[in-house]
Structure formats: structure tokens, C-alpha cells
């Protein structure tokens, strides 16, 4: 740690600060500013016309703009909740499986699981759209072997969103498994030995030692999973176009469609602000809950 000249400090931090400032903080501020304006995306910012809260009123109104936004918002919330509900327990189970040292194969499993995280989402979407194909896809074929009838997957409003959750979990589970393993390696083995002496069975060991000590890891995983989940775009843009019957219309897709493709920059920005506010609320809540539990312990 040293006191270097102001000039050195400026030289070191300005490339990153200028770039992040220009390409993240400036547009973020503009998003908020535009949300109070009527503005066509194809015109310059100076053409924006101040309309106060009208965009927000539209989002909560019975107009189609409001209905579509609320559907996209609810779909995104369901998608995020389902993703987390599957990813968290599954990543801990797989983490335990990889972490156990009784037999070789754990490391190989980690490699296979994590490799799917390297695959571009667009390729994931393309491949899964074929896997899900009702008549030519192998998933329904395999289901028929165990006596389950053909499922409509992406082509039914009831199952399309869940189908996208499944392919998302498949792509991301390796990343979260690695996080879980990192958390598991931090748990001192002495705690397990102490639990054994106290006569704890494996189940008590898991809920008494493993799970409480994974709290920080699970907190981090939850936040990352939320941020990742609201970004779902490729499978929707490429395969379902938000359908059938709006069932897979999610926020990233909807905001881009309204704000870029339809050129309603002001309205799209107000949706983006709503997304940002919701994320802040959810993440603050999660941290508050985690802290409460931590103090109660």
C-alpha cells in the first residue's frame, strides 16, 4: 500500500472508469431519464418529449402495452423462481457427489457438467428445440419406452416456459456445481469428525453441518442465478418468439421488442427501470433474510 502521485492513480483507473462510465452508467442514467419521456429509438435523444409518469401509468393500465408487460414480468418471475428452485438443490447434490473422494469419477463428472456452460446459448436453444420435437425428438421417444405419452413441450402454453427452464438448468448447472464444491471445500473436516463423535447420522450431518456452512455460497449462487435468469433471451428469440400465447414472453425479449424493434424507446425504458427496481428489491430482501437467519444462529 503506498501513496503514489495523483497522476499515476488517474492513469491506472481512468481507462476502466471512463469505459464503464460511458457504456454502463451513462446509458443506465439515460434509461431512467427516457422512462419519463416519449421517445422513438430511431431519433436523437434531444427529440424526447417529457410526459411525466405516463409510461409507468401505461404499464399498470389495461392497455395492451400494460397487459403484455405484466405477462412478461410474471413469466420472468416464474422462470427465475423455477430455475433457482431446481438449480440450488441440484447443485448441492451434484457438488456433494463430485466432492466425495471415495471413488474416482467425481472430477470427470465436474468436467462434463461444466463443459455445457461453455456452449453458446444459441446452440443450446437449437439443439434442445430438436430434442423437444414432439414427433422427431428423442425425449418423447424415450418417454414412450417407459409408457409416458408424447408431451407437447415448447408447443403448448402450459409447458413451454418449463421447457425453457429445463434447458437453462442443463446449461448452467455446472457453474453452480463448481460454486457448491468451492463452498464444500471450505468446511473444516474437524466439524464432521465432531458430528460423528456426537453420533450424528449422515442426514443430521448434512442439515447440521453442511447446509448451515454453505449459507454464504448459496446466497451468492442465488444472486447470480437471479441475474442470469432475467437475461434469458436466445431460446425465446429464436425458437418460441414469446409464444405460444405469450407463454414464454420474458422481460429481456419483451423490452428489446418494444424498445428496439418497435422503436418505443421511452416505454421500453420504463420497463427496464421496473426490472432494475425489482432486482434491487429482491436482492436487498434476500440479503436481509440471510442476515436475520445468520444472527438467529
Amino acid at each position: 500500500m503506498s501513496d503514489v502521485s495523483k497522476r499515476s492513480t488517474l492513469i491506472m483507473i481512468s481507462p476502466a472508469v471512463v469505459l464503464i462510465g460511458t457504456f454502463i452508467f451513462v446509458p443506465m442514467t439515460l434509461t431512467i431519464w427516457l422512462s419519463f419521456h416519449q421517445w422513438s429509438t430511431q431519433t436523437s435523444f434531444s427529440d424526447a418529449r417529457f410526459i411525466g409518469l405516463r409510461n409507468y401509468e401505461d404499464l399498470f393500465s389495461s392497455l395492451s402495452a400494460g397487459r403484455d408487460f405484466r405477462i412478461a414480468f410474471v413469466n420472468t418471475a416464474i422462470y427465475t423462481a423455477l430455475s433457482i428452485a431446481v438449480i440450488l438443490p441440484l447443485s448441492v447434490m451434484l457438488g456433494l457427489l463430485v466432492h466425495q473422494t471415495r471413488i474416482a469419477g467425481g472430477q470427470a463428472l465436474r468436467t462434463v457438467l461444466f463443459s455445457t456452460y461453455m456452449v453458446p446459448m444459441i446452440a443450446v436453444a437449437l439443439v434442445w428445440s430438436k430434442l423437444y420435437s414432439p414427433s422427431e425428438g428423442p425425449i418423447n421417444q424415450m418417454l414412450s419406452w417407459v409408457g409416458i405419452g408424447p408431451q407437447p413441450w415448447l408447443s403448448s402454453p402450459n409447458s413451454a416456459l418449463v421447457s425453457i427452464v429445463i434447458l437453462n438448468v442443463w446449461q448452467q448447472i455446472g457453474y453452480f456445481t463448481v460454486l457448491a464444491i468451492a463452498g464444500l471445500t471450505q468446511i473444516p473436516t474437524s466439524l464432521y469428525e465432531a458430528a460423528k463423535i456426537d453420533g450424528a447420522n449422515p442426514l443430521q450431518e448434512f442439515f447440521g453441518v453442511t447446509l448451515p456452512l454453505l449459507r454464504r455460497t448459496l446466497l451468492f449462487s442465488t444472486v447470480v442465478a437471479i441475474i442470469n435468469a432475467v437475461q434469458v433471451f436466445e431460446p425465446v428469440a429464436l425458437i418460441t418468439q414469446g409464444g405460444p400465447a405469450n407463454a414464454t414472453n420474458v422481460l429481456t425479449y419483451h423490452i428489446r421488442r418494444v424498445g428496439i424493434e418497435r422503436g418505443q424507446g421511452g416505454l421500453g425504458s420504463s420497463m427496464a427501470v421496473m426490472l432494475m427496481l425489482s432486482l434491487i428489491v429482491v436482492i436487498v430482501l434476500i440479503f436481509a433474510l440471510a442476515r436475520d437467519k445468520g444472527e438467529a444462529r
Partner: protein
Amino acid sequence: MSALVEHRHRSGRTGFRLVNALLLLLIIIIAVIAAFPLLWMLLSSLKTPAESMQTPPVWFPATPTPNAYGQVAGVIDASRSFWNSAVIATTTTAGILVTSLMAGYAFAKYRFVGRNTLFAVLISTMFLPPIVTLIPLYRMVTAMELNASLIGIILPNLANAFGIFLMRQFIAGIPDDLIDAARVDGASELRIVFSIVAPSVVPAIAALALFAFVYHWNTYLWPLTILQGNTENYPIVLSLSRLLSYNRGALNTGLVMAGATMAVLPPLILFVFLQRFFVDSIVSAGVKG
């Protein structure tokens, strides 16, 4: 007594073996499920159009044929797309490495007013989904007349919070004495960053480089938005979507799967050789963060 001990010992070992065998079986089943979609992609790329259309599906092509790979080149300019992807991913990665090393060094080793606040503000952008800034960013880059160009894709991504965070974590571990010694020898601060600090954090640089490369090879939303249909500058992930729309239906399944296989290979190959760095950096970001 000893017979009893012997018996218990034995049955304990058989129990142990049974559990191990079940665990191994479980690991194999999960690995197969995880790998299945990628295997299906590869197999489908080698099928004939007739095989792709059969119901129920054919798993293994009778005579694997690479024809689909040749057809890809007839629909999209595959080599141009690969070149675009390589340019985007490499340039962006280089930029991220330079800006992250410099800023990471300052945040780890300098004392200045507002340091922790500035760091927290920069890091907060890690949690901002790109869609929140997409609309104005699209307008800004268009106003700079960089839309439809590779520079327009690259420029906004030359610095990121994760890189700064990762570099600060690792540079903080370098002894101050090493840096002070270089200063006594009259080395400039920039020289210190690139010839003293950088060589000391090679694993972190490797991890960040791989992360950045794979992310920017795979990223779809921003190039799609800013290229506005200028297919000449499409990276491979965007060209894949053109393959899909080229001829909807089962006829083009082999074609799409061949294109997807090609697009997946560069990040997968990088990963197979360098997965240790990927994993280490995720672990350090998750645990220390």
C-alpha cells in the same frame, strides 16, 4: 470373537463396495444425461436429411456423412463468421485484460480518496443485466456511427467489473516489497503493472482471458441489436440463427446441427485444455467475494 470381527469387517467392506458401485453408477448416469444433448447435436449433424425426418428418430446414422458441413458454407459465409467471432472475442479480451490489470492494481495497491466507494460503484455493475442499458446504448453507438460494425460490438465491452474484481483479488496477494523494489530501481508505474505485477498473476490472467473469450464468443443480444442485419459482420452465433431461418423444417436439421457443432468447438476446446483456470477463478470469485 476374532471370527465375529472378521465377519463384521467383511460385511462392512461389501457394504462399502456396494455403495461405491452405486455412486459410480449414479455418476455415469448423470454424466450421460449431461452429455446427451451435445452428443445428439453431433450425431444429427452426420445424418442424411431422410434420417433426420424419421419418426421415431434414428439415433445413429447408418453411414455418417459430413455433407451437412459442406452445405453450411453454401448458406452462410462460415469462414467470415468465424473470423468475425475471433476478432470480437480476441480484441475484447485483450482490452479487458489491460483495463482490469491497471485498475485492479490501483485498487489493490494504491491509497486514494474515494477508493472503496469507487470500487463498490464499479463492482455493482456486475449485477446489472445488459437489457437495462440496451436501448440508450443502442442509440449512443448508432449516433457514433459505429452501428453495423465490429468496433460497435467491441468498444462498449473493453472493461468490466468482474475483471477488475478478479485482478484486485490476486494482485493484493503480491508483496509490497516487490513493487517498492522496482520503484527504487526507477521503474515507472505502467512498467511495474506490465512487467512486475502481470507475470506474478499469470493464472488469474489466464482465467480472465478464457472467461472473456468464451463470453464474447458466445454473446448474442448485443451483436444482434447493434449489427441491424448487416450479415457481413455477423459472428458465428448470429449466423447460426440465419441457418435456422434458411429453410424451416426437418430438411435443414443436419445443416443447423453441423453449424452448431462448429460454433461450439472453439469454446469447448479452450475449456478442455484450460478448465483448471476456469474453475479456480470461479472458486475465488465465489468464495472470496
